[in-house]
């Protein structure tokens, strides 16, 4: 009897999860399908899961524009890799340091960390500091530094992990063997916290990859280091603006990519993350809950 009930539960559970998964995947499939729909068909019938006429024109257009899109791609990849690496390193080292309870001034550092996590100066003052003190405008730092480089939330996740999951005895024994603090960090703390590193790295890489706001504020439109997301967002927002504002018919949308091309750029844009995510997913689930429970 009980077994039966369990079975029913699991059938119902599976059923619900399948529906939810389909709902989550469907937009992606629609995106993919509309990117390979013939432009005329898309105009006439709208987007469809089963377009009447297929066409790879959108992708060949991207190929012709590879100078622009390909460079955007490279910029995105560079920024994601460098940003994630530097960001995770800083976060982990800071967190490791903060996990030492005998650190002088630890309270102050923790306060600074949490305070800036909860409050910030707003866009204008941030912009002033970055452009007039650090002069990152129109440089690659404009994509790397603002908002994304170090996230206090990640530091706290790391810190909790180091405090509660890292066996104190291990650190102690290493110290007895004469290891320096830095050696303990990278020989013991880092290898033991791989799930955490993957989790934070993945999240950080995602936010670097998907970011377009930094490009919008810290790069001029003629800059040659626009990331792929900045380019895509730019195209979409301008089309929306032209549709919503009657800026006169002297303005044509002819120069802007067509519907199917926008879809194709979006597909190209999500592809790397789509491929990368399953590879690290195993660690991801582990890491997200790790450090959450105290022993």
């Amino acid at each position, binding site marked *: 009897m009980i077994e039966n009930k369990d079975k029913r539960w699991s059938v119902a559970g599976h059923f619900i999860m399948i529906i939810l998964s389909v709902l989550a995947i469907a937009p992606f499939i629609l995106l993919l399908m509309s990117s390979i729909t013939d432009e005329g068909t898309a105009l006439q019938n709208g987007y469809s899961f089963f377009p009447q006429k297929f066409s790879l024109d959108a992708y060949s257009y991207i190929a012709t524009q590879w100078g622009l899109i390909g460079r955007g791609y490279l910029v995105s990849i560079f920024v994601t890799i460098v940003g994630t690496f530097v960001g995770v390193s800083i976060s982990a080292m800071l967190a490791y340091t903060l996990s030492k309870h005998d650190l002088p001034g630890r309270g102050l550092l923790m306060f600074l960390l949490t305070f800036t996590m909860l409050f910030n100066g707003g866009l204008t003052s941030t912009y002033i500091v970055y452009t007039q003190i650090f002069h990152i405008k129109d440089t690659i730092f404009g994509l790397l530094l603002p908002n994304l480089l170090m996230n206090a939330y990640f530091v706290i996740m790391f810190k909790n992990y180091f405090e509660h999951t890292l066996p104190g005895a291990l650190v102690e024994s290493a110290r007895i063997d004469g290891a320096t603090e830095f050696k303990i960090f990278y020989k013991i703390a880092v290898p033991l916290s791989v799930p955490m590193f993957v989790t934070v790295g993945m999240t950080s890489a995602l936010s670097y990859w998907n970011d377009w706001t930094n490009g919008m504020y810290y790069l001029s439109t003629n800059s040659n280091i626009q990331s792929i997301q900045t380019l895509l967002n730019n195209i979409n927002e301008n089309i929306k603006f032209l549709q919503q504002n009657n800026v006169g018919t002297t303005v044509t949308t002819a*120069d802007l990519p067509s519907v199917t091309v926008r879809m194709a750029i979006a597909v190209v844009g999500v592809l790397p993350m789509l491929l990368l995510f399953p590879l690290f997913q195993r660690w991801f689930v582990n890491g997200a809950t790790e450090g959450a429970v105290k022993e």
Partner: protein
Amino acid sequence: MKEKKILPVLMATILTVAVVGCGNGNNTNSSTANNSNQSKTEASETGKINFNEEPYTIKMNYAVLGQEQPDLSKIEAKLNEVTLKEINAKVDLEGVSLYNTANVYALKASSGEKMDLMMLMPGSSYLSSFAGRKMIRPIDKEIAEWGPALKETAGDLLPAGQFKGEQYAVPQITSGKLTFGFTLNKNILDKYNIDITGVSSLDDMDAIFEKVHKSEPSLTLLAPEVSSSDMASFLVYFDGLGNTYGGLTDDSGTKVVNLFETEQWVNTAKKVREWYQKGYISKDVSTSQDDGGTLLDNGKVFATASGSIHFNGGATVPIPKRTIALHPPVLTTADSQLFLWAVSSSSERPDKAIQFLNLLNSSKELSTLLKYGIEGEHYELNKDGTVDTSKNENYRNDWLMFGNYNLMPLDSSFVQSSGISADKYRAREKEWNDKTEKSPGYGFMFDPTPVKTEVAALDAIVQQYRKVIGNGSVDTDELLKKFNDSLYAAGLQKVMDEKQRQFDEWLATKGK
């Protein structure tokens, strides 16, 4: 024990230093550059440019659609050659993505970033708010002193750049004013031998639509040219004086009336409804995101209710089209405000900015340079004096936003698509411009600040009703009454009264 404490501290400090240091690395070059321009010398003599001072760099911001311009620096170099000689200044061009201009300008202004000239597009949306927030400055004095050519070339447009009686911006001289009516697929007209000469009213269209519908019942006959607007709004003349709530129609004189109660609008909406019920209009016209213009070019509709009727009677590419104008062209304030050049409040040398605008508007060389690029590199000059830009990839701008349209050569793709020669094009354009009248409200701009809340409420109501009624997809009689009732309930009368008051005041000062 002591040793144990030092290392973590060291690590923490190193990290902090490293983060700060990262940013500091590339800060040296620009801070020095900023200071060099601060040598401020007042112009010594009226109308005479001081060549003894250090050349000032004018920062010029304008809207672009975001494509990169690899050759922008070449254009700048060429431009600076001339400007250094003529007005002792350099120009630094920077495009801002169109959708984001308001944010970027505000950010630059509040952060004190260098900014001299900025283009507002569409100026009608930004002029009053930017001037009200003191982001841009009055330039009457500078124009009087440094803008003789501006007064000559753009003199009759200048009222469109005024706000509360002060000149805040210089309207761009652009191509002729467009009017409204229908754009039709010429192939279909020819196929059924339809003659459109003499067609000048909505009722005249009935016969044409009926004929085409009978032969091709599955073809959608009519769509709004852009999906954000509705057909009735395209087909009625109305000068809203800054927004939709109260304005001037053909026979209202200087009395502000409610568009949605005027005979013209009501009748047009009813006519469109009739066409909708006869099946001429697509059922999802009000929800569709596709512009009628695109559909027309793809042969998906027979005609569009259009606001881009021109003197040439219809283009030839990508498909041959004919147009029917329902109204003679009338220039309103908003038309001249599409591109406005304003001077930032933070500009150190507004006089230089105006000197440059003055130079640009009077120079064929510079107008052509900024619009088309460098001859031989970005365009070829055709025999008939038009410009062929088809081979150019490295410098292009999307709009007629630079220089004086009347001085620069025509783009051959425009002339070719009209199917007439370049000379004829110019002649017809001139005739059209001479025919173009100015609305009695030309130069007046409604300041909505006193009735801000009402306007916001009205916006929401208009969004709810206007499109469905204007496209005929709902019952006109029933909903129109409901629409107007809700408008009045949300304070339409108050907004109209305020507009009338401001307008009367403006008329009085103008009459003086």
